[in-house]
């Protein structure tokens, strides 16, 4: 894959890593009351929007209040998933020592079980960002996004399957989770904890969510239940579309790079930082937009510092950008429309065989040069001894 960043030598990479590290330390030292107040404010907003939203859906007799209620409920679900859930589950607020905001105790309003999510997101995705065959989020199993993935005729359908995914994103995330957990279990242990067990966790969560949104709350409305079902359905749909859009912009824009398992063998912390930078892309907007994306608008910062309270990414971003400029590294950012457009360009391009894809995408180098092998890595991404075969189709 093409890289538009300057190729750095070993010393330069380490120097880059040092600067990133000291930036992290400086900002983390400031974490305190301000961040606690922020997440509490977010929590309040999430609760209030849910009460108001559900209340309006319930007691609406005309379309306007129904629409308002549905929108409020969507906002509530978005906040719950993004700025609250995603960030709390990353352990960004564990230091508060408050069970409400602790990654061990938090559960969110989505069909995906928080514990399973932490495994494949916090661990698999954040460690192996954009590494083919290791990062299961890369294309979510059916989207071909680089020459590194072999073209098959079925990929011709990927614009449609992606549309389908967008509408049902929470289901994609949930179903994806238990599968990853299974695939990542060493083959020998797979019998003990079978796919079925992992699936059961997922199904339990589905049941709880479905009961809540489509049986309990509608039942409370008595004969008015179809209206409540519709409101919940729409709210979940809006949340799905929004999260899909934001998350796809995070790693699949045109210039976001991908990597191979060979490239990351023996990676140092500095090289890991660099990979996070090259594999992620940001969105530009205002503060409200940042909050509604759960600060995944700052995907680069998030990937470098996943456990930093997310609002801090706003102050980190300009300084990280400077460091990147100093080292000639491309800092992938743009407006939502531009980035989302480029995601779809890529999805469509790679649905075709390479010769067409390359024409659409412009001339692209196959991969980054294999990264430098260092003698004594201080930080290692361990690879499984026996390569697993995970098919991507």
């Amino acid at each position, binding site marked *: 894959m093409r890289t538009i960043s300057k190729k750095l030598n070993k010393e330069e990479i380490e120097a880059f890593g040092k600067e990133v590290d000291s930036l992290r330390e400086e900002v*983390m030292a400031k*974490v*305190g*009351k*301000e*961040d*606690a*107040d922020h997440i509490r404010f977010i929590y*309040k907003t999430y*609760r209030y929007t849910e009460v108001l939203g559900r209340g309006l859906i319930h007691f609406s007799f005309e379309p306007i209040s129904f629409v308002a209620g549905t929108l409020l409920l969507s906002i509530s679900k978005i906040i719950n998933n993004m700025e609250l859930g995603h960030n709390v589950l990353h*352990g960004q607020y*564990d*230091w*508060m*020592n*408050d*069970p*409400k905001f*602790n*990654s*061990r*105790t938090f*559960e969110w309003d989505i069909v995906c079980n928080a*514990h399973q999510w*932490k*495994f494949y997101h*916090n*661990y698999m995705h954040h*460690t192996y960002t954009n590494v083919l065959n290791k990062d299961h989020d890369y294309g979510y199993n059916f989207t071909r996004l680089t020459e590194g993935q072999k073209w098959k005729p079925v990929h011709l359908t990927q614009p449609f399957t992606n549309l389908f995914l967008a509408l049902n994103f929470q289901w994609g995330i949930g179903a994806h989770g238990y599968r990853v957990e299974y695939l990542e279990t060493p083959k020998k242990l797979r019998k003990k904890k079978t796919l079925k067990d992992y*699936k*059961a966790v997922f*199904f*339990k969560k589905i*049941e*709880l969510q479905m*009961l*809540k949104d489509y049986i*309990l709350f509608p039942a409370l409305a008595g004969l008015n239940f179809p209206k409540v079902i519709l409101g919940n359905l729409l709210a979940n749909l809006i949340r799905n579309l929004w999260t899909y859009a934001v998350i796809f912009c995070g790693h699949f824009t045109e210039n976001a790079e991908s990597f191979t398992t060979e490239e990351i063998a023996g990676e140092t912390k500095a090289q890991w930082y660099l990979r996070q930078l090259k594999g992620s892309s940001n969105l530009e907007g205002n503060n409200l937009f940042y909050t509604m994306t759960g600060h995944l608008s700052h995907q680069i910062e998030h990937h470098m510092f996943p*456990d930093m309270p997310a609002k801090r990414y706003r102050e980190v971003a300009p300084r990280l950008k400077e460091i990147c400029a100093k080292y000639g590294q491309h800092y992938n950012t743009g407006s939502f429309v531009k980035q989302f457009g480029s995601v779809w360009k890529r999805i469509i391009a790679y649905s075709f065989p390479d010769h067409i894809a390359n024409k659409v995408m412009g001339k692209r180098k196959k991969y980054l040069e294999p990264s430098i092998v260092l003698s004594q890595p201080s930080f290692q991404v361990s690879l499984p001894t026996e390569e697993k075969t995970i098919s991507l189709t």
Partner: protein
Amino acid sequence: MKTFPFIYNQPKEFLNFLQPKEWADFLLGELNPRFSVTTTKAKVIDIKEETADAKTFVLKPNWLWKGFLSGQHVPVTVEIAGRRVTRFYSLSSHPNEKYLQITVKRQKGGLVSNFLNQNTKKGDILDLGEASGEFVLSKELPKELLLLAGGSGITPIHSILKDLQALNYNGKVTLLYFVRSVDDIILKSSIDLLEKNNQWLTVQYILSDVPKEGYVSGFLTKEILDQYVPNLKSTSVYVCGPSPMQTKALSLLEGLPVKSELFLLPGQNLTNVKKEGTVDVYLSLSHKTIQVKGERSILDELEEQGIYPQSGCRMGICHTCVCKKQAGSVTDLSNGEKSQLGEENIQICVSRAESNLELEL
């Protein structure tokens, strides 16, 4: 699908999933910060200066407060720079009084005691836990009692004295209260009043650092004990104070029924361990491997590296920090015992890493 239909098999869990308590807490909290259905919260309704470095806080708890016995302590949680921190304080008031009262002396380097003294104002809300502790009067009151207090160790004893008064005690009580100087005497007016009103009580203040005319000076010694409690043999003893005083008392009073309570700052119960090299702690839920030295508690060492497991008292009382150890061995800091290598639950605030560990965190 063995869980399906889950709701049918575990309706309770479904109810929990709907977070009725969180909702109730949230909405009640919006009405009044003291209201809750899960946490005992108390409003500070009065603050009294005891000495230059100790204050008494009068607290009005919410309906979840279950009461206490004289001599017991309660976990108090405050938020400092966004972070919730818990410490235990003895209740210095009497259970029959309308409001609760804790008396807090600033400890050198003590995070919470300093915060309470400096920053807590009337109207603030403190989170309390349940009162607990064995430092209480036995059902059958002894004929003679010796109470040894050191510094802020007077607080549970103050409550016990009030309790004796309420019980119309008619034996004989001697209180020896060791403090650095006259100005350090906590709850003095109340103690003096108790002495005045109760024939059975003799109070002796003993100044250990700064002598003053009209006051006895000295430390806890055999001579002092003999002087004030001539017939020690038939006496029950309660000791509460700093650890050097406790050790001394325990050795002087060997063979007598002694109840003691020791208040330590978190981390004080650590033996001084120096280690070469590090051990690996693998956190199995977050898939991280962390190197620690194994010199202090696992909790401390993890926090130093930016990992914050849930914790409470940090001294092995509340069990908030319990986590499953899947492999490796730890040393229990409270008694110095080394654990087995296998799977077991440990309190990471009072456990030190001995070998490579695998924790479910």
